[in-house]
């Protein structure tokens, strides 16, 4: 156990160190300054702008920026839906996989456009190589880049000196992909291949096992896909069981590299924020709040999994950590770390089956998603999500210092509060209202695999994951029923765009305000006290909203389990 704690500490140290460096690099990239890759990439960048008829000098206000985001995502959705539906006609389909059903294609297209990467399908059986690369792979890049661009635009709004300009979406998108995601993905993909992740266009391999059975081994251009799925907090696996699959995540090194890359960009955004608002303490405060919540969640999951399932001990006489749905090479510690990192970071990948985790571990994962994926969260999305809580925390407690609440010198007034409330409503709407429908409608209930409170956890997890744009699942839940593919598609859109648009509007409103210089009377937002306040806001608002439902799901399951009850 001491070793495990050292493992967690090393993981944190490496991730934070790399993120710190990356933040400095990203700061230069988004400011359009020269970086070491510029000699190679700058000509490509200019060519992109020329072709699209745009450029860094064409600054957009929040409406222009938001419309560009929506137009680009709409186009991406149409293209991906078409690719999935036309799967029979497209190349690189050695296994002759048939077109996807319309409702599943709708769900999958939305899932990847919204950076959710919920998989209601199994990759090996239902997707051709072409669909993986040209369909999903492209969205892995651009949906991540969309989130990052929006976050950068939102930060610009918070930092702006009354200009009302948030930047140019096309420029931010291009720079994100060219300078940040693509170079990192190339490095990551090569590392993964070296560890045994396939990267081929050849057909599935066929083997005759030692006992004489035929075994077909699914493969394909996996490494390139997996690299970006982690970096972009997408999480949509090449294979059905995602990074638990030994070909998707074969070694400890591949596992640690993926674990780091899951949190790399979300952590970097905290530091990037500090640089962009020219006060690194502000970024460190948000990092501290996220970091402490992260460690708290990890502690619960690790302790629960290590202790194991008391029912297996009492009923089957088997003791030990909870290994159901876990891989031997990862064991308890690395599975717990991954579960916390991915559910916190809105990365839908798994290296162990969340459905089979202990009830309180499931509770932590649910809370990570239900608070809106703001404990680091998705690339970009987690950060602007946390800024929503910052706005709410500052508004709630800021009044208590006897001034109109302000953040970074900008007053938080009616308009910002209205928009923040609208954005905040998307989580309870998508999780509670849609979840309640799913718990009521008979066609939906068929999806629930497990009896007892765990069944409710499965419903809650599905809709929390969709609305939070996480993408992981309590996979026993039969998400491919048309009821769920449709309703979850709507939940994913809600969680993405009903959040992006109001947050851009908040940034737009703030960008018009001239920041007031800080004084002793200013609400301090870089102190430990603020860190505590921010964490309390996240936990209390999240808890107040979802606690009743969680009580009937994972908490009820836990107390029943302690009482020796199974269902």
């Amino acid at each position: 156990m001491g070793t495990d704690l050292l493992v967690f500490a090393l993981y944190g140290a490496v991730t934070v160190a790399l993120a710190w460096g990356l933040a400095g690099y990203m700061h230069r990239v988004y400011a359009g300054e020269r970086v070491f890759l510029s000699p190679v990439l700058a000509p490509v960048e200019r060519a992109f702008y020329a072709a699209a008829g745009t450029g860094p000098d064409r600054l957009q206000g929040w409406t222009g920026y938001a419309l560009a985001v929506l137009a680009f995502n709409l186009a991406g959705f149409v293209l991906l839906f078409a690719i999935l539906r036309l799967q029979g006609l497209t190349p690189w389909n050695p296994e002759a996989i048939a077109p996807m059903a319309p409702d599943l294609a709708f769900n999958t297209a939305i899932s990847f456009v919204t950076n959710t990467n919920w998989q209601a399908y199994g990759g090996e059986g239902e997707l051709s190589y072409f669909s993986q690369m040209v369909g999903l792979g492209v969205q892995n890049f651009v949906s991540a880049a969309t989130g990052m661009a929006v976050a950068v635009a939102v930060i610009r709004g918070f930092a702006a000196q009354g200009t009302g300009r948030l930047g140019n979406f096309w420029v931010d998108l291009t720079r994100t992909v060219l300078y940040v995601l693509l170079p990192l993905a190339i490095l990551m993909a090569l590392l993964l291949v070296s560890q045994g992740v396939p990267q081929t266009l050849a057909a599935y391999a066929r083997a005759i096992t030692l006992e004489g059975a035929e075994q077909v081994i699914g493969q394909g251009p996996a490494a390139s896909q997996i690299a970006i799925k982690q970096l972009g907090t997408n999480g949509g696996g090449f294979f059905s069981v995602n990074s638990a699959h030994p070909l998707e995540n074969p070694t400890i090194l591949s596992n640690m590299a993926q674990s780091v890359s899951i949190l790399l960009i979300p952590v970097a955004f905290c530091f990037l924020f500090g640089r962009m608002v020219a006060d690194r303490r502000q970024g460190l405060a948000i990092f501290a709040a996220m970091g402490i919540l992260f460690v708290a969640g990890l502690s619960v999951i690790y302790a629960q999994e290590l202790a194991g399932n008391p029912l297996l001990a009492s009923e089957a006489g088997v003791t030990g950590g909870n290994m159901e749905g876990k891989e031997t090479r990862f064991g308890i510690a690395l599975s717990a770390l991954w579960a916390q990192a991915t559910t916190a970071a809105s990365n839908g990948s798994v290296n162990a089956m969340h459905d089979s985790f202990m009830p309180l571990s499931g509770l932590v994962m649910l809370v990570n998603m239900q608070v809106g994926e703001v404990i680091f969260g998705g690339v970009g999305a987690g950060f602007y999500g946390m800024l929503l809580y910052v706005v709410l925390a500052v508004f709630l407690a800021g009044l208590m210092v006897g001034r109109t609440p302000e953040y970074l010198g900008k007053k938080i007034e009616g308009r910002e509060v209205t928009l923040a409330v609208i954005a905040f409503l998307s989580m309870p709407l998508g999780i509670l209202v849609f979840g309640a429908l799913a718990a009521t409608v008979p066609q939906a209930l068929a999806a629930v695999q497990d009896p007892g409170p765990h069944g409710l956890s499965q419903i809650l997890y599905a809709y929390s994951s969709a609305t939070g744009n996480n993408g992981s699942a309590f996979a026993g839940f039969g998400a491919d029923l048309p009821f769920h593919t449709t309703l979850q598609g709507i939940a994913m859109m809600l969680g993405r765009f009903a959040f992006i648009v109001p947050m851009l509007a908040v940034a737009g409103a703030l960008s018009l305000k001239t920041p007031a210089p800080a004084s002793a009377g200013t609400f301090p937002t870089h102190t430990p006290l603020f860190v505590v306040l921010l964490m309390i806001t996240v936990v209390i608002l999240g808890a107040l909203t979802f606690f009743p439902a969680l009580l009937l799901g994972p908490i009820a399951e836990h107390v029943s389990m302690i009482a020796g009850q199974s269902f």
Partner: protein
Amino acid sequence: MMTHLRPALVMLALMVGLTGLAYPLAMTGLAQALFPAQANASLIARDGRIVGSALVAQAFTGAHYFHPRPSAANFDATDSGATNFGPTNAALIAQVAERAEAFRTAHAVTVVPIDAVTASASGLDPHISLQNARLQAGRVAEARGVPLRDVLAEITAQAEAPWLGLFGDPRVNVLRLNLALDDRLPLPAPEGDSPTG
């Protein structure tokens, strides 16, 4: 919206070209050149015949082989999957109890390693714990008619240590272990589930 349509379509087309085609194809080329074995599912050949992937579990049921962890996917490497049973699911508990009973019977032990009776995440977990392997060793040695000590030595030889001495649990790859057994401690008579079968 219309003013954004052109950049949207152009940008999407450029991104498809760059990230959907150029990137994965370039990576494929590079991977095939640099890491040909790994890039093609780390296949293992015996006598010019592919017997499986070093990374993917395959079914072993014969008493002379070490057995991998239970697979909810039935070792189908085109349809990976887990049980996804919740921890309070009575079916899970019944299943584990049944496997535990079978393990105790088969190996005449009281202690049951947890990984031997719980299904893995992928259904293709290539490893088992060292404890699991050692408890199976007696059965394997008996079936092969070799000293237990030799089988245990094979386990030790094939054991994989934690990365950097810290990361991950000690474990052994079942396919590699069974291949090593076939190489070094072959079956006395070519009957039953022989490798040539």
